[in-house]
């Protein structure tokens, strides 16, 4: 069997990331604990979520060190998901609206 190099990175990096994930999770939790509401809440939730997800993917899943050929292959399809999300946000608002306008009670 030929030499297998794989992904090797200093243990310190992992520990740092680990620490950061803890901190960020704590922050997300605080968003709820401190009962932020409305736009602030959403911005905070989404920011922490993206940061956490980014750290996990970049470091734990080694994407930071992978060649771009792989990274692009993984990220480009996400565009389809984003379109789907966008359309469905719009669609559910429309459904809710028509329910509110026309229905007397319940649905």
């Amino acid at each position: 069997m030929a030499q297998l190099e794989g992904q090797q990175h200093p243990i310190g990096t992992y520990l740092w990331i680990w620490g950061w994930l803890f901190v960020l999770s704590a922050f997300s939790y605080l968003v709820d604990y401190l009962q932020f509401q409305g736009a602030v809440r959403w911005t905070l939730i989404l920011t922490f979520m993206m940061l956490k997800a980014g750290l996990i993917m970049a470091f734990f899943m080694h994407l930071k060190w992978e060649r771009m050929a792989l990274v692009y292959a993984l990220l480009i399809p996400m565009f389809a998901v984003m379109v789907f999300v966008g359309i469905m946000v719009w669609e559910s608002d429309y459904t809710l609206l028509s329910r509110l306008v026309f229905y007397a009670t319940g649905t």
Partner: protein
Amino acid sequence: MFVAIILILVAVGSVLFHLWSPWWSTPIASNWGYIDDTIDLTFWITGVVYILILFFMAYCVWKFQYREDRRADYEPENNKLEWGLTILTTLGVAGMLAPGLIVWNDFITVPKEATAFEVVGQQWAWNYRLPGKDGKLGTAATQNITDENPLGINPNDPSGQDDVLIQSEDLHLEVGKPVKVLMRSIDVLHDFYVPQFRAKMDMVPGTITYFWMTPTRTGTFDVLCAELCGVAHHAMRSKVVVDNASDYQTWLAEQETFAQSIAEARNKTKTIKTLASK
């Protein structure tokens, strides 16, 4: 040779079929003539391309059929040609799409003067509700449905009391008056479809859908259900009668309102009860 001839025959035959066949769109009876125009336009653009492609193929098959002593050309690509064709196609697409989108904009923009009426679908029958004297439909919900209130009209909504109910009978509309068709279903998906009106839309339980149109021709038309809704989907029929103004008013005056139908139903149960108690 033979293959080329058949290809030509397919092309020519298709055109002849189009010209001679007795089957084509059912004569229109609403304001959506634009839709028919868009269909015609699409027909022309795509039809020409189709015929051209078939003829080109036939020509190739005839001209370049295998001969031992001939060699094929070697031409991997020709950017100019490919881009030219792309641009032409893009123009063709734009030529169909632009008018289509303009008409669609009309289709989803209901004019202010349109009066609303409601179609309620259920397995497998059609009911209609017209606004009463106040010109407004009362709110309604599937939760409100009872034996005496089969359309689930909100009994506490004053604007609903005078709504005119038409259950399992023909719907009448007035010619030349734009209407907004509000659609509601109490069980599964249905689709209110009158071929002559061109417009159609699904009826979705839990939501209200709509389209608008103006009937342009008096007469009696079939209402079909165009969304599979169970075993009797094909048998879910009704009729819509487009009247002139005076006929329409006479008809309207004869119809029962929500308040009346409730009262009637209560009376009926009362008599049944009293009869039973005797």
